[in-house]
């Protein structure tokens, strides 16, 4: 079943008198449990595509369906709620809240959704961290964690609300090759275990081997698709 269905999506930015087309008639579907690697050079539009798929940016044209929600017409408030409940994000630079422990960084998602951080939420946060190999680090602040550990906490945060779709923006760019491979392996295992759809933006071709298929993007246009496995 399709989780993400983008059809004929365009994104045009106005810069002075000129229009800049960041995304040009992009069409992409991602199914449950499917991992898609989005490969492209800097400025190719992959971040724009990821932002539109995650409800961070509104498309200029086209239709974006996520988990049955047509988010093309959502206003800012609806998009905020949509992101909170349906999408997980893992960012390029690890963006954990610096003054919260690993466990609390996961519980932020619960708090933003109006949760009270009760026993159920805490148990879920601990279980996720345990699965991610951070059971002994729940009370550590981000500054006390290694780069790989921080990225794993960020993955835990993205998975906390059981999203239908998780979007990864260059998740291994700040890690060395070995650690990067471990994180990609972890991402793959977690997505498959939860049957969660994922898009992984990368410019590193080696990372595409962890995806089910790879979609290339150049100058805002989606190009050749290739199964990675």
């Amino acid at each position: 079943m399709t989780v993400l269905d983008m059809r004929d999506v365009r994104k045009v930015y106005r810069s002075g008198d000129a229009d800049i087309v960041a995304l040009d008639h992009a069409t992409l579907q991602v199914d449950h449990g499917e991992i898609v690697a989005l490969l492209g050079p800097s400025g190719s539009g992959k971040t724009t595509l990821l932002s539109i798929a995650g409800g961070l940016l509104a498309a200029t044209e086209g239709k974006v369906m996520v988990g049955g929600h047509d988010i093309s017409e959502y206003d800012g408030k609806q998009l905020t709620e949509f992101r909170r409940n349906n999408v997980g994000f893992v960012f390029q630079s690890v963006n954990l809240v610096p003054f919260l422990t690993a466990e609390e960084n996961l519980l932020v998602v619960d708090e933003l959704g109006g949760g009270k951080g009760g026993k159920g939420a805490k148990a879920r946060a601990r279980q996720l961290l345990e699965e991610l190999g951070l059971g002994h680090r729940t009370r550590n602040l981000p500054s006390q964690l290694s780069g790989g550990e921080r990225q794993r906490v960020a993955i835990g945060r993205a998975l906390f609300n059981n999203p239908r779709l998780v979007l990864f923006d260059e998740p291994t760019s700040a890690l060395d090759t070995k650690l990067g491979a471990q994180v990609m392996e972890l991402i793959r295992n977690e997505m498959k275990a939860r049957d969660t759809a994922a898009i992984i933006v990368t410019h590193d071709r080696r990372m595409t081997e962890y995806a089910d298929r790879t979609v290339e993007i150049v100058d805002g246009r989606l190009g050749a698709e290739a199964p990675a496995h």
Partner: protein
Amino acid sequence: MRLPRLPFRELRRQPSRFVVATVVLAFLATLLLFLGGLLDGLYLGSTGAIRAQRSDAIVFSSSARDSFLRSRITPELRAEIEAAEGVGEVGGLGFVLLGAQVPGETELADVAVAGYEVPPAGVPTPGPDGQGVADSRLEDQGVQVGDTILVGPAETPITITGFVDDTAYLQQGTVWVNLATWRAVQNANRPDSAVADGVVQALVVTRDAATTLSGPLPELIDTTTDGATKTLTVEDAVLALPGVKQQGDTFDQIIYSTLVVVLAVVALFFSLLTIERMGLYGVLKAIGASTRRLFAGVLLQAVIVATIAFVVGSLLALAAAAALPAKVPLQLTPGRFLFTYAGLLVAAVLGSAISLRRVTRVDPASAIGGAG
């Protein structure tokens, strides 16, 4: 709405970020309390004898320009006033400011000898000639019950029979005596402004509760005397005391200017903090935080910082008050603490509100790197 935990945790785990702003605001809170305390001390010390009057109006002669010392009410004028519509109980009042020798003290005490007929709040009915009750601030100048103080250059003796609180007049401790004693003190020590028998400086007038008035009591009295009197409410008579209004206006201006500085400090501090947090806000917005929630966090932190600053500032002000000599008219009242806290809170809320625009403009898409 439940209070968000994020701002609390930031304050608890990164207190050093807030120290500078809290210290600056604490000093400003001390300054506000100090200025307000001085204003209150000056006000209370100047006006006690008039605020204690339980009457509805105070009648001066029209030429006195609202001054007790210049005013004279003759027995004939008093009779006219007593006959005016709505006038109930009437009592004479007079003040004379003098130095007094206190037994066992080398320094003269500043006293205001007040003659009265109708007892003000806390003051007993007038006693026999040569006796009086003193305002408790004279205790600080060595006066004790049973002392006979010698008033003025004529050394008129007055024996103190008791003390009353909060009845000072123009920063001098009032000694409440009967009208005959006041006249004797006045005539012996201020012969240039002697008063004849039956003459007083002013009258306190209580409204006759049984009469329905055809207009405000002061107007009715002044109309009856055909302009020979000027009648004020007690509140207006307090403000008409020399310097009281001017002091109040001056201090108020300084206090409100200081509150503007508080507002500017809070605005600047939280603006800088918000700029520093733009990246974090972008991420939080991306994962579903609303502008409202993030801004509520800023407001909450501003309120907490202002509250801590107020507590620290209050302790500093209390310590300063305890260390100051008694002659400094600093009075820290609960009302002043409440006003200062309210002022700090309003300034903190308005100051932090300046960050709202910046928080609103944080784009959740900024959380995703601009690499492509």
